[in-house]
């Protein structure tokens, strides 16, 4: 049980947390990162290659870790977070305390648990995996169905746990469409004779180069896109899966039999940190993500030392997360400067002098 003081405590050592920490480091602030997993890197640890350029997730993770000089505490389970006169105190399971004037929450998201979408059959039938499971298969170089065979026909299912009132998430996760297309291309590269189908409602490929990826998957890799949301699945006696959906372009119910199904699971808010935070009502949107998702007009933000960055404020790609982390880091820096320093002027212009003590 010890008490440690920092300028900023960041909860979550994923892309957003790491990015923000490296920026705060550069400004000379002392920062600690608290990570619940055994190793830092957050969701980067679950990816094989990143969209849209197929960069190695591991390489990106190494770069980000190399860029930060902050102290990283791993396997930390937070017990409580309290507001103190001088800022925040985070207490972990071992009663260690990490205190700082600024607290940055970068806890990321939780992939939708596909078991909840019972009619899709994940966790019931064997030949179902999620996009997260598929990344792991890529990392382990083990692309096989439940029987250990190389699949011949695979379907990607879009919007699993997204835009669905039945599982309580009416928002679009924004990154699953491109994830599916990226994974389809990777699969096709590794298993050239594979037939791949994507069942989509509408494709939301707003990011840079995403449309290129889409067109490449169509023309070069012959990925078939079927417009229709999966309605239900059934298993055949040979463990192949029958998919039921409407071909909404034809206006007719349709079916397709595949060896394996990949569910593109949505990005859900991770509520585990929620109950620990002071004043949460003010900080959570109706979708469960932090913040209000509004444009932060200059001078309007009333920073009180509690900051949020990354996918905990809404579904984001890694680039979007790190971009947001940079912006928020800048705000943290401003906040800390005001809180910890006095403004003075010398012949070179403005200067910030840190309070003594």
């Amino acid at each position, binding site marked *: 049980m010890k008490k440690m003081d920092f300028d900023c405590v960041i909860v979550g050592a994923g892309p957003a947390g790491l990015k923000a920490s490296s920026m705060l480091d550069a400004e000379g602030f002392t920062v600690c990162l608290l990570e619940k997993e055994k190793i830092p890197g957050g969701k980067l640890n679950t990816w094989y290659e990143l969209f849209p350029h197929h960069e190695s997730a591991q390489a990106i993770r190494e770069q980000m870790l190399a860029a930060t000089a902050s102290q990283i505490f791993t396997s930390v389970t937070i017990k409580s977070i309290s507001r103190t006169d001088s800022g925040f105190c985070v207490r972990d399971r071992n009663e260690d305390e990490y205190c700082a004037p600024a607290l940055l929450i970068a806890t990321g998201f939780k992939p939708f648990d596909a078991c909840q979408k*019972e009619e899709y059959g994940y966790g019931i039938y064997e030949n179902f995996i999620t996009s997260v499971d598929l990344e792991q298969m890529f990392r382990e170089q083990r692309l096989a169905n439940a029987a250990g065979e190389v699949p011949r026909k695979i379907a990607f299912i879009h919007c699993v746990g997204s835009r669905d009132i039945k599982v309580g998430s009416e928002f679009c996760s924004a990154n699953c469409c491109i994830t599916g297309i990226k994974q389809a291309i990777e699969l096709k590269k590794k298993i050239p004779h594979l037939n791949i189908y994507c069942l989509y409602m509408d494709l939301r490929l707003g990011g840079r180069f995403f449309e290129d990826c889409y067109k490449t998957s169509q023309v070069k890799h012959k990925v078939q896109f079927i417009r229709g949301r999966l309605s239900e699945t059934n298993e*055949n006696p040979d463990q192949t899966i029958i998919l039921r959906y409407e071909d909404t372009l034809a206006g007719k119910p349709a079916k397709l039999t595949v060896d394996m199904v990949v569910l593109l699971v949505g990005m859900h808010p991770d509520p585990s940190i*929620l109950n620990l935070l002071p004043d*949460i009502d003010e900080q959570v949107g109706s*979708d469960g993500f932090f913040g209000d998702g*509004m444009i932060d007009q200059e001078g309007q933000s009333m920073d009180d030392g509690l900051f949020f960055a990354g996918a905990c404020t809404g579904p984001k790609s890694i680039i979007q997360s790190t971009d947001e982390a940079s912006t928020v880091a800048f705000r943290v820096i401003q906040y800390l400067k005001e809180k910890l320093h006095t403004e003075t002027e010398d012949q070179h212009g403005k200067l910030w002098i840190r309070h003594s003590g």
Partner: protein
Amino acid sequence: MRTPIMTTKASNIPFLWREYQKEIADDHYYYVRSCIRQNFFPGAEQILITLLKKDLEIDLCVDSEHTTCTGIAYHVDLVKLETTMTVNARQFALMTEAGYSNFLVSCVTSFGLYNEVLEIWEKHPEIEEQVRQYLLKATGRTFNKPKNLVHTSDIIYKYKDLLADKIRYKLINQDTGEPLRVIDHIGCHYAKIFPEKGVGGAEYPSVLSGTVQAFGGRSIDYPERRMCCGFGFRQYFLKSSRGYSLSTAYKKFKAMEPYKPDLIVANCPGCNYFFDRWQYVISELKGETFGEEGNGIPVLSAEELAALCLGYDPWEIGLHMHQTAVEPLLIKMGVRFDPDEKYRGFSGEQLKKPKIPELLKAY
């Protein structure tokens, strides 16, 4: 914004629907019959009363003055919503007058309809008020809404373990010692409209599979499991569109065939009727039967299943009124029965046997 996650709809959704349990009262029920069941499977209708009163010692009010819920007429658009609601209100009035507050429904269409009507009243109190006025004007009655609305298969599910302790015949093949392979079919209006009104929700309701397993059988999952039996209300009642019903059921039979089911259990009287009769029609039309050696797959309701396992005489349960013969099942289960008693009438007279279908075996 400004709404914490705890109040979003997500919190009202059980994590896994198939583990969801609904409220089923222990005792004191007012019972309403099913139009279809009492015509085609009157034994099931009657044996439930015995099961509840005698075997489970439940207090059950069997009223002779309740009517149809108008469910079929409602879903074929004959009667107006106001009429349906008022007729349902009258049933509730009879329940109230009899001093009961738990409402036990034999028919799944009725069950869905009562739930729908209660939901409408919940959301629109002004409609409930209007219905109260209609009922008062037409009959002079007033009513309380039921506290607990339960389907007969629910109550069997609730007491499945208690019944399992008492059963004489398990769902086990006496020759092989293997559990019987049982297809369960849940009537669409049991939980598809309101998942929270069914044991296990809409996708994997366990109201029948749980009972089947408690009685020693093996529940079979098969493609088209959740497909409607094909009733289709007006689609069936009009001969011109009856092909809709038949074709839908045919798809289900073809999908379940590879799994070699020994038995189909359904909780809805309509589904029971269709699975029973369409096997006959398909045999006549296509020369196809789905059981072994020209037999069909026997079809039972939850009531019939429970009563049969408990050792009631198959003919007392009315199983002789099935077109698809139940004998193959009785033999597999080792149920003792007297074939000569099958067609004995109320007066004790031995009735002339029914005609035998072309292909589907009869006994």
